[in-house]
């Protein structure tokens, strides 16, 4: 199937209010989780406080694909660091996760709409899981109780772009096998 056909299928699916709501809903849930994994949203905080810093610092890298915050909102028990580029990257990944999971849902609920085995739709969740872990190697090692190796650091450093590419590939694969006319 040509890329034009994939985009056409995507447009048709997006045009359906229920599917669009599902994608937006999943993305809205996933973005805070992604920012929590990056530790831009974290527990801990005393009183209400809002601080800002020089906006040009938003381009300073804290990791391979993570960037400095330029504002901090502190609430009792919760701290939110506002890093525009992290939110942008997280928004893109969340949207792709939303689309992947939505088409997976279609594959599972309405397999006759897709010309492949319904289990293939689960493919979409693999890169989504990867993207959720796209933070820093020590944080992952701490959670999993692993020792960090050079290889692990290298892999984690490219996890965000790899996640985006995998999400795009799985989305393309599923859309290429989806016939929107069969979706009820």
């Amino acid at each position, binding site marked *: 199937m040509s890329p034009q056909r994939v985009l056409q299928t995507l447009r048709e699916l997006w045009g359906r209010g229920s599917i669009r709501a599902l994608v937006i809903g999943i993305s809205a849930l996933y973005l805070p989780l992604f920012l929590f994994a990056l*530790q831009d949203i*974290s*527990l*801990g*905080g*005393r009183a209400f406080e809002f*601080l800002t*810093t020089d906006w040009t610092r938003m381009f*300073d*890298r*804290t*990791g*391979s694909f993570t960037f*400095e*915050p*330029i*504002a*901090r909102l*502190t609430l009792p028990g919760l*701290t939110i*660091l506002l890093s525009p580029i992290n939110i942008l990257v997280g928004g893109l990944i969340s949207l792709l996760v939303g689309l992947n999971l939505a088409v997976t849902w279609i594959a599972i609920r309405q397999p006759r709409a897709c010309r492949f085995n319904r289990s293939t739709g689960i493919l979409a969740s693999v890169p989504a899981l990867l993207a959720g872990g796209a933070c*820093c*190697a*020590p*944080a992952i*090692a*701490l959670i999993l*109780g692993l*020792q*960090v*190796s*050079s290889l692990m*650091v*290298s892999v*984690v*450093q490219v996890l965000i772009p790899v996640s985006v590419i995998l999400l795009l590939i799985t989305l393309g694969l599923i859309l290429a096998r989806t016939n929107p006319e069969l979706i009820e």
Partner: protein
Amino acid sequence: MNSTRLIALLAFATVILVLGLLSDSVASETDPSLPVAETPYVLGDPIEAYVEFMMSGGPPPDGIPAIDNPRFIRADEAGLRPEAMVIGFAHGGEAKAYPQSILVHHEIVNDVVGGLNVGVTYCPLTATAQGFERGETTFGVSGQLLNSNLVLFDRETESYFSQINATGLSGEHRGHTLAEVNLIWTTWERWHAAHPDTRVLSDRTGHLRNYDRDPYGSYTPLRGYYVEDRTMFPVMHRSGSQHQKEMVVGARTADASARFVLGDLESERIQMTENFLAVYDPTFHTGVIYERPDGVELDGLRVLPGGDYEFNGEIHPPRELPFEPLVSVDAFYFAWHAFYPDSEHPRVP
């Protein structure tokens, strides 16, 4: 402008340029910006082996931002819990406390204390707080790790330094030992009691972080990485003879190194090895290490009930014994052993 004037002007400019370059090179030979120790510390391994073993911890250089313009507040404004861990430095009549909760996010503070330009450095993975004179330059966090320990760099020459052995790994300062000052790793309650006039690093650091959260665990109560009997990054030398996160106090000279398990030192109060003497300092719950003096009989050294020591009929606080004091570094056992596997250590019955 005729050609003669042009040639004269060019010649004059060339002379000025050459003189400028010469004066720069003379200045850099005679007045290096970054102070280094006259005698380098002993190393556990060749520098080539360190460089080969060094690995990325994830962040790029300065990805963990050092605090370059620190602000300080009064002790009564700090709002620290008594048991909160701080790094204390007293010099030239000035005392400052750097809360661990802030340093865990920045690892380096480029500060001036008592007129001394100093880099206060802290590595959460190895629990090491070490101070280095910085001259007119500043230090940054390289993002590299050696034996799970902070590798810093000076921003003038971009030489990389290992924190625990204070030694240059690359660049112009490769093989040089940084001029080290003695920091104290203790609780806020202890530091404040000893230095009521201390000022405290403010959390208005110029950077935005959640200073109420430690990404590795907690010291109050002790949990997470800080208490687990495992390490996170590979180390060059490993030993299972102690819990990996047991606190030790270590010191080194040009020829040897030693480490003392803090809990044992607290019990014994005085411990010795072939070349080192350690006493317990109850004020800060840490150890003070001296070079063991040649030809001096130390049997007469004894501890007094208040925590002072008596030697040859005179009473001395732990930090003022009449021996050659060394920089004493508190560290997790695994980290000290990784750098100094042949460290002298006392036999504990």
